[in-house]
């Protein structure tokens, strides 16, 4: 099969039609030969995966909550028409392949690169396992594999893309909640889907990462049925890059260094003056 064109590709995950079947998790593990972690009883709805990490590059979140009551500002009290108003939201989470990627920004070895498909990839033969990328990723996507001693995350099935195949998770998704394609095509589809949902009365539906407001845009973006933070995604105000602290951090250290020098000079020089007098 021919490889995809060297154009930005990505995922559009429509959470409004996710049924929580976890086929994406299974397909991802199977294709990428991920062993998975020991099964755990998390007592968290139907979730027994827990979080994205080195062994889980897809994670279906199950969010059970009662929505807030109507506040008279167009707020829809029943975002999903099930269980008498109780919302049961599901979302297949994954690496967002951010345009301004925090992991790529801090990686000291240049192991994390942007591919010809505009995705973010950790080169396993370059990564030395310093874990700075884990510290930086705002989505908790990257995990450390003790066996390989390196950081791992979704590759957006880079090997499949090179061979003209769509990522395993998108292929396995039975409801097409996970859509794969060229980014501009996905964005158009997302705009249409959002408009349809809002026309149907789902006023809280929103696109997350569709535009540049979150990390310059996400190649894996989402249609959400509630606020981003409900899905453990930082909202626009909190979607900030690690480098925001470079300047204040170093400036604070420089000011402290100068104050320290002054404090030291005062301590050592005052006594020299005393000795002279």
């Amino acid at each position: 099969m021919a490889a995809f064109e060297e154009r930005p590709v990505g995922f559009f995950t429509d959470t409004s039609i996710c049924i929580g079947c976890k086929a994406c998790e299974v397909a991802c593990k199977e294709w990428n030969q991920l062993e998975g972690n020991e099964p755990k009883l998390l007592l968290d709805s139907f979730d027994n995966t827990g979080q994205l990490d080195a062994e889980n590059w897809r994670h279906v979140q199950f969010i059970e909550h009662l929505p807030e009551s109507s506040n008279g500002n167009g707020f829809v009290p029943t975002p999903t028409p099930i269980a008498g108003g109780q919302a049961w939201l599901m979302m297949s989470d994954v690496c967002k392949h951010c345009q301004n990627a925090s992991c790529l920004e801090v990686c000291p070895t240049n192991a994390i690169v942007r591919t010809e498909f505009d995705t973010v990839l950790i080169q396993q033969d370059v990564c030395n396992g310093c874990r700075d990328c884990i510290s930086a990723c705002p989505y908790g996507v990257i995990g450390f594999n003790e066996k390989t001693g390196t950081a791992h995350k979704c590759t957006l099935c880079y090997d499949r893309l090179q061979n003209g195949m769509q990522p395993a998770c998108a292929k396995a998704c039975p409801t097409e909640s996970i859509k794969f394609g060229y980014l501009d095509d996905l964005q158009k589809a997302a705009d249409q889907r959002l408009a349809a949902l809002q026309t149907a009365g789902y006023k809280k539906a929103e696109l997350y990462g569709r535009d540049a407001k979150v990390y310059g845009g996400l190649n894996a973006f989402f249609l959400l049925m509630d606020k981003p933070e409900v899905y453990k995604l930082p909202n626009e105000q909190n979607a900030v890059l690690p480098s925001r602290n470079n300047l204040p951090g170093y400036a604070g250290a420089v000011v402290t260094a100068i104050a320290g020098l002054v404090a030291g000079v005062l301590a050592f020089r005052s006594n020299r003056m005393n000795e002279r007098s």
Partner: protein
Amino acid sequence: MPPPAQHFAASPGWEWWILGYFFFGGLSGGSYAIGTLLRLVGTAADQRASRVAFIASFLALLPCPILLILDLGQPLRFLNMLFDMSDGGLAFKPESPMSIGAWALLFYGLFSFVSFLGAIADSGWHAADPIARLLRGTVGIVWSVIGTGLGFFIAGYTGVLLAVSNQPVWSDGWPLGGMFLASSLTGAVALLLLLAHTRRGVDAGTAARLVVADRNFAILETVLIAVFLVTVAIAGTIGKVLGVWLLLWLVVAAGLAAPFVLSRVEAARRWPPVMAPVLGLLGLLALRAVVIFSAQT
């Protein structure tokens, strides 16, 4: 009051090796700066303590690269911090404190080693006399000043490295770099005072000056800790920093209060003279431990 910061990042699992590096790196950078200060503005009697500071600086630096390499998942790839294995060029990213830190550690190691050789030559190891002669003039002053800049960097960049993340506490507290640097100075003076109390030969006047410096640095560190706590309180993550970590904060507070208490409280004057320096060093360790571990639990 702004809404609390949202944090969904995973923990990087930086633990004991990194704590050890932050401790010894801080001691080394702080000691180098104290050595330079004593050399440039101290009396003739202070020069012995200056040499001890340069020697301590290098000895404290020795475990640092070992600890950092041991912390890597792939220790044999430590050179990837300096060389880009993708294209064979240098790996240097100004926006990554870890990248700058790797280079700074390399250059600081050179400055610390040469100053160490000069110090031991002046202390009687004559094989290094040529280096000691070189370091006695203007070249030596320039060398010490540049080395101090690098030492300050090693003492403080670790805090900036933590802040340049998306972790709770760390990324909420931009003053971490300054706070670590100030505590490095306090810890380095504590180390020198400990050596002064346990070894002969350090001038009594020098020891008195070091105590004054210790108090000055403790005030600076206290201010920085206060600023740090305010920043994490504003971000809504102060509960993580305090909480179960109060015991470590008590150690930090004891280390900062010791130089003041010893000179003003009658009962404290009966304490062993090494008490204040030991508390100061424990405070240096406790401060870094509370910052490293509180964010990751």
